[in-house]
């Protein structure tokens, strides 16, 4: 393990920006491109927002933990909440599926997480909480320029 942190914070929307910044600093050692960083922040943002709005449904009542590990250019991040959980995980993953259409949620959160990362695992127990574990490998700059 090259590095490892745990961040624990109150589930409120103000802290979604905090979580994004902490994760940005955590991957600074990788020196990502602007695009990679912005994709990674989007992934974190979707997962943390889900924990706040679906996990707890109300600002300021619960706790969220983020556990992140880095090994060379691979990051594994778990976003943990102790909220209401997800009854049907494969349904939740489906594009456009949302249980909060009234709040203008798009139902695209998990789809976005999947497309901007290498792996998304969801572990959830109803009324106990949800852990979303995201793996992201950052390609060294030489390789990515070959692809582009």
């Amino acid at each position: 393990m090259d590095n490892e942190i745990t961040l624990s914070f109150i589930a409120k929307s103000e802290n979604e920006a905090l979580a994004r910044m902490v994760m940005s600093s955590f991957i600074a050692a990788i020196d990502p491109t602007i695009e990679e960083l912005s994709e990674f922040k989007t992934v974190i943002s979707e997962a943390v927002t889900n924990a706040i709005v679906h996990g707890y449904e109300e600002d300021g009542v619960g706790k969220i933990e983020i556990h992140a590990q880095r090994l060379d250019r691979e990051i594994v991040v778990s976003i943990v909440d102790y909220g209401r959980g997800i009854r049907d995980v494969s349904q939740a993953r489906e594009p456009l599926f949302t249980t909060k259409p009234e709040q203008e949620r798009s139902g695209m959160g998990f789809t976005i997480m999947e497309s901007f990362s290498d792996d998304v695992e969801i572990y959830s127990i109803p009324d106990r909480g949800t852990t979303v574990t995201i793996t992201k490998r950052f390609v060294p700059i030489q390789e990515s320029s070959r692809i582009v």
Partner: protein
Amino acid sequence: IGEIQRFLRDDGMVKISRSIRELNFKIRHATDDFLKKHERQPTILELASILEVSREEIVMATDALRDPASLQEQLYE
């Protein structure tokens, strides 16, 4: 400077370290201007609105003044 800015805008592959340095430079200038005009330091929100970036970007960029290597150097010099 114009050339660097264009490069930063056009190319998603630019290293974040470089774009942060660029913003840092702008922050210093904006702070000097603000000090002259208002005779006090700008807050980070004021800088964010002047430079049309987010508060987070201001916080990130001002931190880049000291790179993580500096402590390492202190430790093993």
